[in-house]
């Protein structure tokens, strides 16, 4: 059992670059390295790939949520001129096996449905033709007969379904995929001693990342070598790409995945397997390169990456001095038709399950159910955004029931700045933070008292303004244990999540950094460039970035889990250390001085303390590459290059089912304060002001951090007010288009999101960097729920269900109006 509180003998980290040093480039608002090519339309996305003799594939989507495939008549489709192949699940399965799955026991998924369809939109047939037009024409000619099975659409129905309604009978006679109970600390005791217990039922609706570019792949199969080459917009190909080779029944060296720029992901392209496997399966069958790019409906119905979909019954124990002592909850999570990451999204939530508060004990009962919907995957927050929503709603419920002040209550319950590193009851560690400081900054930036006055004035005019407040955690840098630690049988219990870079300084002193993960819409090129420029005192213009494929790839886990900036920074700093050593050695020979007397300044290897002395890096590079005989005949080798693999800066193994060890310790924090006006007669919400204070430790580039904060907040606004995949009782997805799946657009955004930064550097990462990619979405939903609730205080409504649509808000207000008569 992990005892919550300050850790008095904290684990030693491997930090080599401390945060308190004089930095010249890190911390500046340098313009993005990526911008020139993206802003001039020169990004290269999956649909830009065109290979000679390339064919095109289209999927026939299942119209049914749950059915047995009785027969498939493909004669008419095959007869259409230009059609190369019409591939059924059975035909695909001749050579292609199940898709990767982290759950254990696994839940079998096929790239083309085999025997049964389990959600609408699941591929039933893949048609390959000379053009996408012909492929779609042919798909429309395929006749499939189905035996309809009962569809499970409501997660509560999944709790006690049986017989034909069971999605995966081979995994047991029920649609409950997992039912797990965890106790961290003395939960029962804390509740027995509580002065107050607050209870709520909370509903978080299913939404998902909506990249403009859908998932796609172009695959080629070389019969001579038996090797696949797949262009794809996936990540993690240098991490678990070998599992795609396993699906395709080839050796891992017979698969090369070439990354493309990703036109948005928001988590949803964390690890694409179905789409690359579909394209590769088709390429092997037709003997030509095949392009398969999801259309919008494919993506919304079958991208395998819908977000969490949960009902919480939560209880919060509070003692007589208004301190929160324990939290316990029962959560049902609707995972859809498959379970690719097991209960990873709940493992993730355990990393910060007490939020920024000194809650001593946590009890969790997790029921994961399978339903006839697209499966869950990754969506900005990976489940912890829902944990945050639950915690903050419970805090606000306590504040409201006990008639306390939301600001003071938080101050009274925060983990204090001097208590870090801090261990939470699940065993995870929070490395650093200043939660009261963030709240104080937000209150000041917002002019909280000023808005409270305006709120009162508005009330007098019959207008309803509300001020929201949410203080949440952003766990950064995942360790891989969350993917399996909640499995009944642990299965493939991996513990690595490294990131590598390869850096070459060429003959002329220009640097090329190879990243081993793709461009995902964030700014890895900017980050890598700035860190290397800082290390070598190079001009950022003299640094270029490339992306390695799997053939040339070193271990690279890729963006996700607010890890990439931390990990790339660590990897670049590590590679730079190797380069610096060699540069000094070569320069030492050139200058006839000891390498120990040399340092880097202004692009030179110079004598310590004498700027402008020594040689430029370009001069040293030229010597190093071209003039070997100028140097002693020792073990010095030509060229300047380094590979470096940076492992997770601080992680430990799970100790027991009540102590998961340190698995997500680089802890960011945010405090959001939106101001909204609600029209109680129509339920419409308008955001009047928005303050977002974030702590992501040392910022490599505050400008790109601001972009992450604004983008994440926009997505959080979507989650709070607009976005919801709506399945009808038959499992039909009613809004598989951007007509009806509503995301905030520019007009729905506040005029300005005012951003503040508070900086508590991590003692474990290079320069003290923390993650920043998910924070906005992980806090905006509870902040907006609180703001709406505050606006409607005179009606005493509770915002327990998101998204808070006009109809939902008006329904709550009407019920209150009717109650008052």
């Amino acid at each position, binding site marked *: 059992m992990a005892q919550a509180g300050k850790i008095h003998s904290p684990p030693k980290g491997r930090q080599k670059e401390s945060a308190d040093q004089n930095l010249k480039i890190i911390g500046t608002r340098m313009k993005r390295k990526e911008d020139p090519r993206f802003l001039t339309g020169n990004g290269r996305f999956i649909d830009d790939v065109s290979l000679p003799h390339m064919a095109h594939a289209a999927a026939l989507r299942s119209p049914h949520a749950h059915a047995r495939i009785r027969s498939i008549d493909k004669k008419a489709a095959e007869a259409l001129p230009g059609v190369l192949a019409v591939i059924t699940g059975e035909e695909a399965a001749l050579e292609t096996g199940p898709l990767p799955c982290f759950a254990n026991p696994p839940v079998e998924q096929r790239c083309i449905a085999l025997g049964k369809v389990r959600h609408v939109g699941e591929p039933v047939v893949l048609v390959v033709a000379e053009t996408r037009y012909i492929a779609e024409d042919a798909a429309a000619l395929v006749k499939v007969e189905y035996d309809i099975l009962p569809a499970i659409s409501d997660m509560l129905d999944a709790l006690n379904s049986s017989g034909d309604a069971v999605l995966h009978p081979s995994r047991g006679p029920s649609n409950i995929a997992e039912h797990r109970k965890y106790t961290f600390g003395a939960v029962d005791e804390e509740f027995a001693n509580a002065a107050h217990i607050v209870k709520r039922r909370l509903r978080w609706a299913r939404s998902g990342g909506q990249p403009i570019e859908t998932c796609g792949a172009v695959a080629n199969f070389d019969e001579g070598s038996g090797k696949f080459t797949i262009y794809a917009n996936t990540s993690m190909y240098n991490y678990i790409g070998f599992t795609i080779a396993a699906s395709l029944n080839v050796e891992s060296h017979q698969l090369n995945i070439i990354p493309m720029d990703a036109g948005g992901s928001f988590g949803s392209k964390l690890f694409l397997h179905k789409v690359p496997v579909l394209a590769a399966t088709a390429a092997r069958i037709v003997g030509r390169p095949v392009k398969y790019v999801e259309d919008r409906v494919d993506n919304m119905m079958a991208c395998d990456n819908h977000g969490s979909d949960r009902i919480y019954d939560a209880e919060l124990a509070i003692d007589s001095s208004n301190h929160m002592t324990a939290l316990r909850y029962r959560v049902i999570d609707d995972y859809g038709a498959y379970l690719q990451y097991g209960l990873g999204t709940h493992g993730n939530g355990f990393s910060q399950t007490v939020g920024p508060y000194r809650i001593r004990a946590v009890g969790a009962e997790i029921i994961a159910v399978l339903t006839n919907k697209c499966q869950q995957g990754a969506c900005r927050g990976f489940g912890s955004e829902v944990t945050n929503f639950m915690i903050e709603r419970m805090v606000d419920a306590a504040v409201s029931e006990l008639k306390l002040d939301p600001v003071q209550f938080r101050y009274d319950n925060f983990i204090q700045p001097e208590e870090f590193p801090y261990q939470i009851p699940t065993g995870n560690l929070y490395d650093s933070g200043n939660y009261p400081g963030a709240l104080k900054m937000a209150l000041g930036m917002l002019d909280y008292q000023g808005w409270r006055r305006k709120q009162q004035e508005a009330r007098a005019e019959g207008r309803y303004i509300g001020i929201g407040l949410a203080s949440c955690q952003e766990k950064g840098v995942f360790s891989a244990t969350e993917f399996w630690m909640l499995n009944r049988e642990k299965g493939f219990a991996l513990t690595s999540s490294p990131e590598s870079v390869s850096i070459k300084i060429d003959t002329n002193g220009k640097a090329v950094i190879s990243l081993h993960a793709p461009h995902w819409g964030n700014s890895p090129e900017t980050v890598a460039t700035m860190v290397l420029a800082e290390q070598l005192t190079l001009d950022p213009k003299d640094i270029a970035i490339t992306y390695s494929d799997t053939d040339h790839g070193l271990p690279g886990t890729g963006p996700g889990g607010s890890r990439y900036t931390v990990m790339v920074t660590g990897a670049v700093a590590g590679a730079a250390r190797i380069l610096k050593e060699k540069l000094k050695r070569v320069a030492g020979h050139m200058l006839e001085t000891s390498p120990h007397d040399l340092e880097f300044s202004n692009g030179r290897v110079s004598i310590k303390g004498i700027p402008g002395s020594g040689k430029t890096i370009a001069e040293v590079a030229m010597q190093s590459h071209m003039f070997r005989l100028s140097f002693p005949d020792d073990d010095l080798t030509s060229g300047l290059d380094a590979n470096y693999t940076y492992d997770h800066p601080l992680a430990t193994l799970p100790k027991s089912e009540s102590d998961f060890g340190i698995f997500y310790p680089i802890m960011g924090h945010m405090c959001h304060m939106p101001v909204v006006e609600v029209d109680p007669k*129509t339920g419409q919400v308008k955001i009047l002001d928005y303050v977002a204070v974030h702590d992501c430790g040392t910022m490599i580039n505050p400008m790109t951090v601001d972009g992450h904060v604004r983008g994440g907040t926009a997505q959080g606004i979507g989650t709070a007010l607009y976005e919801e995949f*709506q399945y009808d009782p038959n499992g039909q997805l009613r809004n598989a288009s951007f007509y009806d799946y*509503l995301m905030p657009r520019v007009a729905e955004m506040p005029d300005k999101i005012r951003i503040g930064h508070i900086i508590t550097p991590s003692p474990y990462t290079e320069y003290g960097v923390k993650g920043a990619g998910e924070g906005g979405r992980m806090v905006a939903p509870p902040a907006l729920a609180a703001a709406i609730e505050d606006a409607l205080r005179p009606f005493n409504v509770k915002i327990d269900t998101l998204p808070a649509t006009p109809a939902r808000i008006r*329904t709550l207000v009407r019920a209150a109006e009717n109650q008052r008569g």
Partner: protein
Amino acid sequence: MKPPVFDYEQPTSLRAALESLSRNTGTFKLLAGGYSLLPLLNARTISPECIIDISRIGELRYVTEEAGTIRIGALATHDQVMNNSAVIRECPIVFEAYKHVGNHTIRNRGTLCGSLCFNDPTAEMPLIMSLLGATFVVRSSWGSRTLSANDFFKGPFTNSLMPNEMLVEVRIPRQPAGHGHSFIEISQRYGDRGLAAAGCMLTLKYGVVSDVRIGFRNLGEGLGRVRAVEAELENKAVNAAAIDAASTAARQSVRPEADMHADAEYRRDVAATLTKRVIETALMRAGQTSHVPSFSGRLS
């Protein structure tokens, strides 16, 4: 998401287009701005045998005013109509409602007549044309006829055009001088298909309201102007009780349906709220000499 195979014709004159309509015996669709048609085609929701692209018929791209009547040709874009000075001056409700029609990109290419023919139940312009008493000039190779809004619009997504007919012009008659107007739409996002909308025009003289025109959108099939609501105000003195009565009548008259965005009860409820608000705003504006509206939306 590619369209099925179709034939394509591109007449460049009205006469040629009408001949094409007469000649075509299979299923076909007219293409003007394409903002509604092309997504349906790409999603294969419809699969007409032929697309008759009328977008190159320059002679139909006009908005003119003659003797108090505003004439709008089949290919006049939303943007042309919205920003026409006669339209802004004579029927400001058009401008107000247009703020809710898509966004600038859509209005730049989409056509008023195309939207009227498509008659999406959430579209604003069918209601606005009903309130304005617009007439619809319909032609075929055989001749022409002029329909009222009531006769032109049928149920959702349908109109009363015969297969060989085409809407060539909409005529807006002179509106009562000094009338008040208001259009309010509730949508979840700016420019979305509305959850519900209401429009009102009225004339106010010596405290008495007349020529009241009130109607709704997306609140029930076939609802253009709603006489039961209008009757609560027509030729009556303005007071809160009358407005409340109209609001109650609206609640009782609408026949909304539920969809994924809002249930029927929500729509019925906001119909009452919208009615009250459009009447109040129209009353406030009535009698004012200048109606030239300022654009308050954040996007144009």
